[in-house]
């Protein structure tokens, strides 16, 4: 066995390890080139593009009704929120607003999506840190939410429930009952989560003081979402730029100051509680009325540029549409949260061990199709 060559061992004796594109903890086809000094990380270079599907380019050839469906495939764990962002951008262009009922349904669905996404993240964090069982507990709770999605939207993951002007059809008669049950169950099961990971000494050791991201770094890398809020950067789009009526709902923006993996973990755990709070406020107060504002069969946006941001479970998703007045957008650009969050990975992981890198990747909650689009 000979250890030579630039891509294996550098002249300084640094070990070059290609983590991914097929690696159990990169959560998809992410390729990280890692320079190691023993087990200590010296440098990381993310290589992307393994799952690039040109969603932005595809959107230029689809009508304003149709391009929404493609965004379900970006951040597939928050498909509903992605769809909502696009619909909101189109509504902004048309100068209309969704009906009050549709708005509340969107918030409810969005928060259920956020819960489901955070539950999956919690399970995967446990899995990445070597505990297999959390994954199954998380999936038990996530399954209930997926069932709600299936009942009302017709699909479990890529719902495509949002259309410009509202939602595609009204909620299922069982929706409220089922949601209340799921939320009640989840509130009980949340103590399991704390017992299994939050208080566990091994987990705390693995995450506390690991992968620290300072507030300054978070700002300069454009990090958003719970990852940034754990560093003390207040950036919740739902608070700063309320959409869909989030301004009428009571909830707290979760902030922490440590900026380490444990802070990110606790931020997300607290966000789950906030999501539950929002759902509980709204579930009995869905206003009556139309679920969809009337729009023309062929939507044409006026000439101009429209930008809409929403808060996905991973951070700020921006949809930027340039319209030349035709029936399909001239240019669409998505500002995906995963991409910016990934850029901070190298800074966070430097000086840590390989095990730390896995913990950091788990707590910034990467979804690779969201990064590549």
């Amino acid at each position, binding site marked *: *066995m*000979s*250890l*030579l060559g630039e891509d294996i*061992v550098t002249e300084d*004796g640094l070990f070059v390890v290609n983590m991914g594109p097929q690696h159990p903890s990169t959560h998809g086809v992410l390729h990280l080139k890692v320079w190691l000094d023993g087990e200590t990380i010296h440098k990381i270079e993310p290589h992307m593009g393994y799952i690039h599907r040109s969603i932005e380019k595809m959107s230029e050839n689809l009508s304003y009704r149709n391009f929404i469906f493609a965004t379900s495939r970006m951040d597939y764990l928050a498909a509903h929120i992605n769809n909502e962002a696009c619909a909101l951008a189109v509504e902004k262009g048309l100068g209309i607003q969704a009906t009050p009922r549709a708005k509340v349904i969107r918030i409810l669905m969005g928060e259920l999506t956020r819960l489901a996404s955070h539950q999956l993240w919690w399970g995967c964090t446990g899995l990445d840190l070597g505990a297999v069982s959390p994954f199954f507990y998380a999936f038990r709770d996530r399954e209930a939410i997926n069932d709600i999605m299936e009942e009302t939207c017709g699909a479990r993951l890529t719902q495509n429930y949002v259309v410009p002007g509202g939602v595609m059809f009204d909620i299922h008669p069982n929706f409220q009952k089922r949601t209340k049950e799921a939320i009640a169950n989840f509130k009980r099961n949340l103590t399991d989560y704390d017992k299994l990971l939050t208080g566990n000494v091994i987990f705390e050791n693995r995450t506390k003081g690991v992968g620290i991201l300072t507030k300054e770094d978070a700002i300069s890398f454009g990090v958003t979402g719970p990852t940034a809020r754990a560093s003390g950067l207040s950036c919740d789009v739902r608070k700063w730029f309320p959409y869909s009526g989030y301004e009428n709902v009571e909830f707290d923006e979760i902030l922490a100051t440590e900026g380490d993996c444990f802070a990110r973990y606790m931020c997300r755990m607290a966000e789950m509680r906030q999501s539950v709070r929002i759902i509980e406020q709204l579930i009995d107060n869905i206003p009556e009325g139309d679920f969809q504002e009337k729009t023309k069969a062929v939507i044409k946006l006026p000439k101009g540029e429209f930008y809409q941001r929403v808060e996905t479970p991973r951070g700020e998703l921006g949809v930027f549409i340039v319209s030349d007045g035709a029936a399909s957008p001239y240019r669409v650009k998505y500002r995906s949260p995963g991409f910016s969050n990934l850029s901070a990975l190298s800074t966070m992981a430097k000086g840590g061990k390989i095990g730390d890198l896995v913990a950091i990747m788990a707590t910034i909650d990467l979804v690779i199709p969201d990064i590549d689009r």
Partner: protein
Amino acid sequence: MQASIIIFYCLAAMIIGGAILAVTSLKIFRAAVFLLFSLIGIAGLYFWMNYEFIAAVQIVVYVGGIVVLIIFSIFLTHHSGEDMKSPKLARSIFVAIAASSGFALTMLLILQHQFFASSGNVVEPTVKNIGTQMLSTTENGYLLPFEVISILLLAAMIGAIVIAIKTKTKA
């Protein structure tokens, strides 16, 4: 032929074969593994002689300690996978002469020595006896040799640390 004799020859073959391969192998990691076999063979020989305690100590110290340290130091130095250069002929001849004269000297001593059957109190090699003997300071006690031998482990430890420390050349 008795089973015991067969086992002895098997063990002897293992020791000698392992030793020869360890010296002749050009891959340093393989050499360490062959050395391991040789040491295990020696441990087996102790077992064969019913000196179980010594055999276990042989495994603990040499196999579990020294060889692992050797392998570690091989890991820590790069380029360990390449073949070593074959030694020069002159050097090989010199080593061969040195080794065979050492062998001859040992054999000479063994052959000249008058072996006699031990008489009287044969100490049973039980753990209790070994423990008492090892820590006794009387004439037949082994406290001093025991301590001297522990220097071997110290030397191995220091050697491992020296190899592990990378000299950082600062520009």
